[in-house]
């Protein structure tokens, strides 16, 4: 069984590599395939890192141009997904550290920006009151996320929104797994702190900071 899994893993990378090779031969459909596979993933990463829907669309466009230009340099050492995440993250860092006049209103009146996606938490089987609470909670979570310092936000977004393993996140961020573990924990802790302050997640026990005698492993 183990052997079969390993073979399947190699096979996946081979497919990625084949896609890159088709691209370098000038086959535009290879890029189309890459786009359709990863557009949502890249857009959502950009959305959560930038906190703005328009900005995320711009970033996605630029990221895929980068992917198009450099896909032939993909060597298959990592999965294509990891490679694209790395390109996307580097681009977001570069672009978002520049000065921009875009704003992320703290108030809850901005639904249009793509940040306030709480409405999508809606489950049609629930009543209007419950839907409103879920929508508001989603907005608050999205806003709190946007307030996290970038290294923590990156780690939390990659883990909790994109579902990457610690190992994959370490590969994308170019840091050790221990660092990933610490950033995720600290990011979540700060998120909880921000949400507690806003009165979100009412009724939930606070994630307290406690004195620990345990040695932190990295």
């Amino acid at each position, binding site marked *: 069984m183990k052997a079969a899994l390993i073979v399947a893993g190699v096979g996946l990378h081979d497919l990625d590599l084949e896609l890159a090779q088709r691209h370098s031969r*000038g086959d*535009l459909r290879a890029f*189309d395939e890459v*786009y359709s596979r990863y*557009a*949502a993933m*890249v*857009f*959502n990463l950009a959305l*959560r*890192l930038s906190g703005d*829907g328009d900005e995320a669309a*711009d970033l*996605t*466009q630029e990221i*895929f*141009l980068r992917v198009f230009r450099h896909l032939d340099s993909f060597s298959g050492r990592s999965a294509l997904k990891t490679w694209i995440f790395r390109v996307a993250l580097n681009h977001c860092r*570069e672009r*978002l*550290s*520049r*000065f*921009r*006049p*875009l*704003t992320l*209103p*703290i*108030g809850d009146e901005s639904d249009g920006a793509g940040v306030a*996606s709480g409405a999508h*938490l809606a489950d049609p089987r629930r009543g209007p009151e419950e839907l409103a609470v879920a929508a508001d909670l*989603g907005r608050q*979570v*999205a806003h709190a*996320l946007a*307030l996290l*310092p*970038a290294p923590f936000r990156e780690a*939390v977004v990659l*883990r*909790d*929104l994109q579902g990457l393993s*610690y190992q994959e996140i370490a590969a994308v961020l170019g840091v050790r797994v221990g660092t990933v*573990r610490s950033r*995720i*924990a600290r990011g*979540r*802790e700060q998120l909880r702190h921000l*949400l507690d*302050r806003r009165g979100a997640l009412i009724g*939930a*026990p*606070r*994630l*307290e900071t*406690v004195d*620990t*005698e345990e040695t*932190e*492993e990295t």
Partner: protein
Amino acid sequence: MSGHISSESLSAYLDGETGQAEEQRLAAHLAACAHCRRRLAAARQLVGGLRRLAQEAPPPELATLIRSRVAAEAGGIAGTAGATGQLQSSQSSLRSLRSLRWLRSLRSWTWWQGLPPLRGSFGAARPLVTAGLALLVAALLLQNGENGGSGLASLVPKLPHAGPEFLVSEAFGEAPAVMPQTTSEVAGRVFVWSDDVWVQRGVDASPAGQPRTVPARSAAGRELLAKFSDLGVLLADGSRVVLRYNYETVELWNGS
């Protein structure tokens, strides 16, 4: 194990990212400690909230736009050479998306034209952007004349008439490397970086925390921006205050 589980271990345990020995140790502690079980439940609830954040679909026009730029780079023609349905859409939506981008560029340019670029890479693109914007402004002014004076203002209604006044605060005291302690006063209100968020301080703020205010477009302002570009920067246009910190711009106060 004495003491409680560290936040980091708890978080890794929740993700199933601990080693087997650590997992057993933590599970044993959790079985005996109601306090840590509550903390684990809280962490689980938070992660659940994050995972329920919707995955948004990229705007449909985006595929067309990217495809057309990619085709142009490849030396081909957009929409041919084996383009699939995934990346096809109408040319008119492409044009409207492009005009929106131009408008945003204009807005950015009008706000920030007086500032030095924070990154060298921006400098290279500046002549092109300026030339493009000059064309756009000319077109808008033309439209302005045709529509009896309402063109430009109606297209960009939120632009301040005069250039914004920037109030830049320097970190004071011993600034930690990661989280600089910063206080800023904008439009008579004092904001303090505290506990990872900006909060507004009351009017009885101690004089020691008073920041130095510098016009952004003065030599001193440029010097400060260059020196503290990685710190929070507060920007105000009189009725609206935004903070640039790290990756994001956050609106702190809107008096209008």
